[in-house]
């Protein structure tokens, strides 16, 4: 910390002091410099975006502002005066509120208890209820204070977080990737709330990688790349392409030839799959039926916690069913089979959780490749063929441009996006007949996301049936031929992606399944009428 800063006047044309100003913030971790000389200026009542790829340093910067991380150098000015934020308590005292990307809520507690915990002045829970109700009506954020959080949807949880932050009457609200888990309708409601807050003078720092949203909502954007500020702009005057270029410092690669695919034989079918909920935090599956043909990508949309986890477990074999016919791979009943047996039938699976389920962080990339690709001639008489294993891992790395220290690097040392590329590569290079992928690009930066989506499209083009479960609607519209929605453990009919819009999918996310457009008669795909039937009650 330098005690006397140079008093150079800020070049922003603001007569009032800035709400928040950062000068020369630097934070280095052992392996990486997360922030390097970052300046940031936020005016009162301004909605200010901070954009950048994963690893650009956005989250670290926000944690510094909120006092969760101490910077190595640089200073912070709050309403024109130097401020030192040592902890989140200091930040709250100044009037900084934060809504976290992975919500900082306590699942077993009620909404009121969650809010009471975070509200200074030790309010009694009984006194809080009317204040919660008042904020809820004023900003259109309906919640029931007495409900326990674990029973709430992600959108509801976010409302709780926002109300919790608003109860402290913040003058700066930090929103970290707030829309990544919301339905399009909920995003619109959130934007209204944020605009209203800004109109009342609260500044908003909006962290996102969704360029459309930033262009719609924000007045100014600070662009980070590699820990440094590479530009400040008015996003409303930019195009998504120009913003993306600024973010990644290069032209965004386009898709190759996605349309030249024609669906062939049915390769993956799920027939009337039901399952009771696994404990109080689980979701019951109610009569799910679906079918994916060779050469086709079926997308499953939905807000997380609506049965995706349970459906994926039933597909991968982690949860087996007594009735073998519920899942069929290339016509072979597989519902009763364990994961390895299903893989022998031609299934490959990329789970949502990369570190732990998709890969073992302490093992090397080669060893991780062996875990699912052992059948690719990598073992002989039960012994590992190290040369072939290494070659296979190297092929994953080079084909998918995985940035890492080679096949001997520990999986845990890779960034999320690079590890995901490696895992997708490991599965795709086995040339599976059926590929099931969960959240393929969650938390992955723009460039890597394009590469991963391209790999899925190419796999389908090569004749595989691909099932993608994703919370990113844009992604599904980009790659899927048909989109089904999972809501409350039930699956909607699959809508041809070209014939539905975001609103219809958003409506289906609430559990009301609109009919398949242009189809009064049963849909040609065999399992779909059953799905519609199952969805009827």
């Amino acid at each position, binding site marked *: 910390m330098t005690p006397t800063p140079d008093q150079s006047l800020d070049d922003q044309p603001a007569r009032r002091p800035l709400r928040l100003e950062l000068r020369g913030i630097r934070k280095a971790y052992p392996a990486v410099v997360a922030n390097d000389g970052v300046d940031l200026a936020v005016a009162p009542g301004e909605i200010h975006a901070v954009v950048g790829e994963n690893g650009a340093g956005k989250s670290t910067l926000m944690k510094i502002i909120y006092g*969760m991380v101490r910077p190595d150098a640089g200073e912070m000015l709050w309403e024109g005066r130097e401020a030192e934020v040592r902890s989140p*308590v200091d930040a709250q005292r100044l009037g900084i509120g934060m809504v976290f990307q992975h919500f900082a*809520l*306590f699942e077993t*507690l009620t909404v009121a*208890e969650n809010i009471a915990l*975070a509200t200074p002045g030790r309010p009694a829970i009984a006194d809080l209820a009317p204040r919660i109700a008042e904020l809820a009506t004023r900003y259109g954020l309906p919640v029931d204070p007495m409900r326990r959080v674990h029973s709430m949807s992600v959108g509801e949880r976010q409302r709780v977080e926002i109300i*919790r932050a608003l109860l402290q009457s913040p003058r700066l609200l930090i929103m970290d990737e707030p829309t990544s888990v919301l339905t399009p309708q909920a995003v619109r409601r959130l934007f209204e709330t944020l605009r209203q807050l800004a109109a009342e003078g609260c500044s908003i720092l909006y962290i996102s990688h969704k360029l459309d949203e930033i262009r719609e909502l924000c007045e100014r954007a600070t662009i980070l790349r590699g820990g440094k500020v590479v530009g400040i702009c008015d996003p409303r005057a930019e195009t998504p392409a120009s913003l993306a270029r600024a973010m990644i410092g290069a032209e965004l690669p386009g898709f190759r030839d996605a349309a030249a695919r024609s669906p062939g034989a049915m390769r993956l079918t799920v027939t009337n799959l039901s399952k009771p909920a696994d404990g*109080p935090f689980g979701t019951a599956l109610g009569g799910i039926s679906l079918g994916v043909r060779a050469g086709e990508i079926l997308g499953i949309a939905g807000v997380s916690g609506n049965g995706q986890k349970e459906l994926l477990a039933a597909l991968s074999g982690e949860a087996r069913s007594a009735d073998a016919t519920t899942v069929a791979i290339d016509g072979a009943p597989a519902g009763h089979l364990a994961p390895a047996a299903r893989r022998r039938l031609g299934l490959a699976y990329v789970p949502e959780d990369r570190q732990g389920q998709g890969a073992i962080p302490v093992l090397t990339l080669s060893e991780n490749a062996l875990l699912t690709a052992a059948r690719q001639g990598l073992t002989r008489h039960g012994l590992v063929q190290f040369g072939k294993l290494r070659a296979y891992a190297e092929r994953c790395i080079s084909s998918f441009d995985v940035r890492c220290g080679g096949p001997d690097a520990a999986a845990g040392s890779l960034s999320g996006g690079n590890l995901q590329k490696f895992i997708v590569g490991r599965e795709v290079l086995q040339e599976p007949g059926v590929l099931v992928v969960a959240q393929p690009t969650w938390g992955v930066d723009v460039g890597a996301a394009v590469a991963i989506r391209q790999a899925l499209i190419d796999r389908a083009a090569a004749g595989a049936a691909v099932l993608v479960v994703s919370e990113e609607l844009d992604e599904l519209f980009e790659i899927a031929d048909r989109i089904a929605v999972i809501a409350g453990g039930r699956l909607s009919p699959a809508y041809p992606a070209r014939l539905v819009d975001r609103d219809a999918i958003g409506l289906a996310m609430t559990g009301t399944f609109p009919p398949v457009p242009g189809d009064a008669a049963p849909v040609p795909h065999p399992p779909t009428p059953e799905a519609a039937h199952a969805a009827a009650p």
Partner: protein
Amino acid sequence: MNGLLPILIATLVAGTPLVYAALGELVTERSGVLNLGVEGMMLVGAIAAFAVAYHTGSVPLAVLAGAAAGIGMALLFGLLAISFKANQVAAGLALAIFGGGLSSYLGKSYVGMALVIPQSQLSAAAADIPVLGALLGPLHPLVWLSWLVFAAIAWFLYRSRAGLVLRAVGESPSAAHAIGYPVIRIRYAATAFGGAMAGIAGAYVSVIYTALWTEGLVAGRGWIAVALVVFATWRPERCILGAYLFGGVTTAQLFAQGAGVAVPSELMSALPYLATVLVLVLISRDETLIRLNLPASLGKPFDAEG
């Protein structure tokens, strides 16, 4: 009534060490810290209390010494498991073994000695209360105190803001840290409280219950206390029931031995442990209850920068 009263009193007497130890461990675990070293903390508390009682003759001083010794042991555990983020299971087991050895060493010169503890004046006064006096009189005030401790902990956990914070820290330390609570300090406090309770439990065993010192006096009650907390699904009212169940079976098998039942006495002595675990396992099979009460971060170290 007259036939049952001695059995009831013996049950309460035998269950009290578990009430203290299990409630203390419950508070510790609610903060997300799993301290398996209860047996060791009880043993060190027991010898500290015994020595103080032997030399001063003062029971209150002895109990304070027991609590202080328990706190000392708990802070040692805290240093390893909270500050240095050692594996909590390993650190707890080490603490249990260390406490056993330390208490044997410190208690060498006291082995076989007995205390002469006069009846507490409070108990004598309580004996004159109509109706209740017959029950309260023969019980040491420490038994009464354990009921107050139970009520206080139940109120603290479910009615007070501080208890809410404790449960929150146990469920998600990172979220608690994010909204500004001092996770490390809260975990230390909860661990120290557990140590104090274990120390008092040990003091009760050595000074009131047996009033003599032998090696390994606590005889596995610390382990039962740890099991009790889990099977009681981290709820104080089930904890106290389990403790008295243990006391009840202990008493019943003593009476049965006294009546000359032809079962080996070793088997009879094992009965309370077996019965307590069995009953608790049976009543705690409800998964919903476990999920809602289990401190989600139990046993996981917390790193503020992580």
